[in-house]
């Protein structure tokens, strides 16, 4: 697959509420941000995998957005070993801190296109 095909596949996974990632079948490296080659060995033998969507907060920060809402952006380390930079959605701010467990939650942010977000596990 070329890069545009991989990106398209990612968008299709998102709309099916599945979290994709890529595994290099040559060297075994896993990564999330879409590339048509492995950044460790430059192999094109890549498989698009489905993540369980569970992980923990590596770091996070809370701020007030332009609409006056408290917003959380963080780095999430998924169980499969890759990391995603994404918003964490919760009504319980006190539950959001480093090392806390989170799971993926999809939300439509651009018309007709969902993206992965994360939410706390109670």
């Amino acid at each position, binding site marked *: 697959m070329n890069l545009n095909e991989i990106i398209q596949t990612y968008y299709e996974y998102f709309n099916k509420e599945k979290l994709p990632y890529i595994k290099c079948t040559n060297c075994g490296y896993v990564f999330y*941000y879409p590339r048509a080659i492995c950044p460790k060995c430059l192999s094109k033998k890549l498989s698009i995998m489905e993540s369980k969507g569970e992980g923990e907060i590596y*770091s996070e920060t809370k701020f007030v957005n332009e609409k006056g809402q408290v917003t959380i952006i963080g780095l999430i380390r998924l169980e499969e070993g890759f990391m995603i930079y994404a918003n964490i959605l919760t009504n319980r701010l006190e539950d959001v801190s*480093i090392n806390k467990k989170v799971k993926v939650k999809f939300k439509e942010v651009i018309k007709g296109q969902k993206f992965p977000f994360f939410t706390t596990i109670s």
Partner: protein
Amino acid sequence: MLLGFSSRYEKVYQGSVLDLIAETVKEALDMAKLEPKDIDGVITTWLPWIFDGTLAIGFPENYISEYLGIRPRFTDLVQYGGASAVEMFYRAYKAVKSGEADRVLCVIGGKGTLMKKQLREGGLERLSEVEVLNILRNNPFDEFIRVYQDMDPISFYAMVAARHSKLYGTTDEQRALLAVQQRYNANSNERALFRGPLTVKDVINSRVVSTPLHLLEITYPIDGVLAFIVGKGTSQLRSMDIISYGDAVWPEFFAERDVDIVYTPTIESAKKIDFNLNKIDAFEIYDAFTIMVLTELEDLGLTEKGKIGKFVEENDLTIKGNIPVNTGGGSLNMGQPAYMSGIIILEEAFLQFNNMAKGHQVNGADYILVNGLGGWNTHATTLVIGEKR
């Protein structure tokens, strides 16, 4: 090697950036007793918005040379974010040493405040988000990153601070103490834009912009330009050499980094420095945020990773102290010209070395360490400047 330099800083400059460039270059040339025809090398940097709000310029080196009537035989364009000015100084020094040019003019800065104005108050509303994204890409994965709400780049450094606190117990008060010590220096510097008494409590009581960072831990973008000339020959300035140099580039998006985000590329650039840090008379450390200075000081090796909080409490980092850091008050108090450039720390090193730091001069500033840090902790340049004997 340093023949002349000049700078202009304003909270908001109303004229064209070419006015700022022309004025500073003229003053730097006057100090060096040179004319435009004597300049045969030009190095500059360029970021969107800094040249009068322009989103893109094709040939920034030509743009400046053209306006000033300079005919270079050597040019370079350095984009190291907050390490840019420091890296430019090194490259100019290297170009002169190797004979690629005899006198290199370095120009860095611009009107960073225009970015804020255009992004927040409109001007870009004629473009859709996708169009802006395609004009201004930071990495190949922008459509999977910019869809989220953040306060880039504050969010990144806030996450570094949060993780530093979680891993090592670093407190808000310890970061605030760094800001207070830098303000002490700024209070002796008549050019500092932000002055006045400041306590740890004041910093802690200032608004939390992005947890855990407070308003008074974050630099303020201003308009400004630094011009300097590196070349052969002598001038009224003290003979200056780069005694030791190291740089490191970590291009990875921070979610893909193998090293913990509490480390900066300074951990690598500092390893290339062959100089006893105990002999450094002043440290000029890039300071867009308090947490940057703290992690840089750790990565330089002044203390172990994780122990900087205690280090700041146990040492005096002011100009009267045992380890003077950001002797003019740093960008936290001078402002951040062109929203990332590293101008303030480099010029402060020039001033200290030449005994020109009025009111905030460190006695016997013979060896100065300058550490530039840029991007999202993606570029570091470390220099020790002094006089070769």
